[in-house]
């Protein structure tokens, strides 16, 4: 089975369209969205509809949770909060109904999918460091977990008796001896100094994890953001990939 994993689209329709076209070429069996379809970008409603139509799994992200008014936007920084409030104003009842059906996490055979962390998914814990990965691994019930949230393509691995190791995301084959927590990076707002949209294809028969980077029309996305009056800091970071 070939699974495509996309996350953190953040209302960037140009990036999502380019990524879905790239996935189309790779003949995958299923597409799983790990959350944060909205927030930051200029096309939250169009991205929600596209994800709803194309994806087999649709997980809840903290930006959906906030857009639904289930937690305060006070936890966000100023630019993110401004974007959340702008996003809330764009969404219709039917857009909200799409988000209201997003799942918190999902287990497919031996693969676990979640937006932030297997530890208390609804608390949206970040996993940046090996220390932060410890509790996440303790709560991971499968061999391999995929997540998003930090926008950083990172691979955490835990072998028996070995300490947890983190590496930058790269194409590799999973080993029998280790368990993995794999961050699939971000489609709509990459933060690893690479401006290209990021996603992962996992071949569960071969154990191959492929990181893919896709060029998209950043200028068009930035133009729309400027027209919408979204914060400048969110516009400029797209070109820098941070």
């Amino acid at each position, binding site marked *: 089975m070939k699974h495509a994993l996309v996350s953190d689209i953040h209302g960037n329709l140009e990036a999502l369209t380019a990524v879905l076209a790239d996935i189309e070429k790779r003949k995958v069996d299923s597409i799983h969205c790990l959350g944060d379809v909205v927030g930051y970008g200029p096309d939250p409603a169009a991205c929600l509809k596209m994800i709803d139509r194309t994806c087999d799994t649709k997980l809840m992200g903290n930006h959906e949770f906030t857009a639904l*008014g289930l937690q305060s936007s006070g936890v966000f920084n100023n630019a993110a909060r401004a974007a959340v409030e702008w996003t809330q104003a764009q969404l219709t009842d039917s857009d909200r*109904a799409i*988000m209201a059906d997003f799942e918190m996490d999902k287990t497919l055979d031996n693969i676990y999918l979640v937006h932030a962390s297997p530890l208390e998914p609804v608390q949206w814990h970040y996993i940046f460091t090996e220390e932060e990965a410890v509790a996440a691994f303790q709560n991971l019930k499968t061999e391999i977990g995929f997540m998003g949230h930090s926008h950083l393509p990172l691979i955490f691995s835990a072998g028996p008796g070995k300490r947890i190791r983190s590496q930058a995301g790269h194409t590799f084959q999973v080993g029998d001896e280790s368990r993995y927590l794999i961050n699939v990076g971000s489609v709509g707002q990459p933060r690893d100094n690479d401006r290209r949209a990021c996603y992962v294809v996992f071949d569960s028969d071969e154990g191959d994890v492929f990181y893919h980077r896709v060029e998209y029309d950043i200028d068009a996305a930035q133009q729309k953001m400027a027209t919408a009056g979204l914060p400048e800091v969110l516009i400029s970071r797209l070109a820098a990939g941070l």
Partner: protein
Amino acid sequence: MPEIVVKYEDKVIERIVTEKKRISVGRTNDNDVVLENRGVSRKHAMIEFNDNAAVVIDNESLNGTFVNNRKITEEVLRDDDVITIGKYSLVYNSQTTRDQDGGAGFDGTMVLNTKAQKKLLENDSIERQIVEKYGGSVLLGMENSSFAEFRLEREVTTIGKAKFVHVQAKGFWLSGIQAKIIKEEHGFSLVNLGKQGKTLVNGEPVNSAVLKNGDLITVGKTTFKFVEGKTQ
């Protein structure tokens, strides 16, 4: 002969047919119509009959007397007018609407279902105890609910069929998060988030509604009753 049908939360508990010229309505036992409820004053109101006309007169009651949801001091009654006193409603008709099938008393007063009335009042008192014990507002499970009592402690309480929501509701076509209850400055409101038409208040589909004490909230196949507490 004129007739007054007494209902408690839409259930008929008493049907009164009287030859008297005036009947008193209130909480204490010396009234002609005794309504046991906190919202009813001891001598709450009078209904006077004259030929084919009837007038309801509020007796400066604390919580007021309403006719067809309008607060009144004195009001001429027409057929099918609804007098609301506390949680009770009294429906007036100038002629009896059905055959008398129970034993009539000397003055024509007839209590059809005291058992049902007692049960309703008992339930009301259980609810009151629950809310008084907690102090705040609660949801009571009425139908297909996994709990009897849920305390509305959070700023936002989610209701739906997903595992991660606070309040589980049943129904195949429900959204994961079908609705939320938001704590506001003065009370609570209910907002539908999922599929349209799956969140109802007192049987009516809503997008959002300010919750009132006693409101029945139905999400899919599950029904809760909102009982307002003293403190929010």
